[in-house]
């Protein structure tokens, strides 16, 4: 398998994710929605310097627990 061919699949996935042509309420749409909600709710507000929200968020909480804090 050539490198060109091996890279084609991930490039196609990325291309289809950003050059969006799917309708709403398709499984591809669901995947994007889940990824977005995960980013919004899981990313610690402090990582983004959120002016209104504070605290570590779920990721920070898990990291704290794993570190035994």
């Amino acid at each position, binding site marked *: 398998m050539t490198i060109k061919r091996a890279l084609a699949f991930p490039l*196609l996935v990325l291309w289809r994710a950003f050059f969006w042509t799917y309708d709403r309420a398709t499984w591809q749409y669901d995947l994007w929605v889940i990824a977005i909600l995960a980013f919004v709710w899981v990313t610690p507000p402090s990582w*983004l310097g959120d002016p209104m929200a504070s605290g570590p968020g779920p990721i920070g909480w898990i990291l704290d627990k794993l570190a035994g804090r």
Partner: protein
Amino acid sequence: MTFTGTIGAICMYPLRGIIRLSVALKIHPNVLTLVGVIINMLAAWALGVGHFVSAGAIMIVANIFDFIDGKVARERNLETLFGGFWDSVMDRFSDITLFIGLIYLYAHLERVDYVIVTALTMMFSVMTSYTRARAESLIEKCKVGFMERPERIVLFMIGALTNRMAAVLWVILVLSVATVADRIYFTWRELNRSPKVEEILEQRIAGQQ
């Protein structure tokens, strides 16, 4: 049925009742559109003073009006070209008003970084609509890109109700930039009849290239 399809179907139950009520009360769809904008201004004020949960709740009410106006117009056979134009223009006012509320808040908090993030998000949100409108004066349809108005509004409500506005702004910004780029590229491709990148990649996967 998909996850988002199920949520959409559940939300449609109460909305059908509101649509029937608006039809029974003979409220003109253009009035519903205007009421939606006015309520959105209240949401923008709530955002501006940092009352995110109230802003989220007000946005839900405002967007019910915004959602049902077209449906009421159809039910009452009041669909007009001007109604479509009025709806689009009022949508831009609603969008920009909410962003101004956030810009005021971040300016008040002396957070220049988020003033700029919000301003850029506002710019690309407006450009998302403009690129499609302008493209469709040249080609038949330009409905590409993920971050359209319904996605933006739902994300705004989620950001306000769960106090995750910064993350929401970043998501809207990045995906709006991608959507504007999609629409520019799509229009260029349609006007120049260039080969599709996805078809080239699919041929490569199939080993034909």
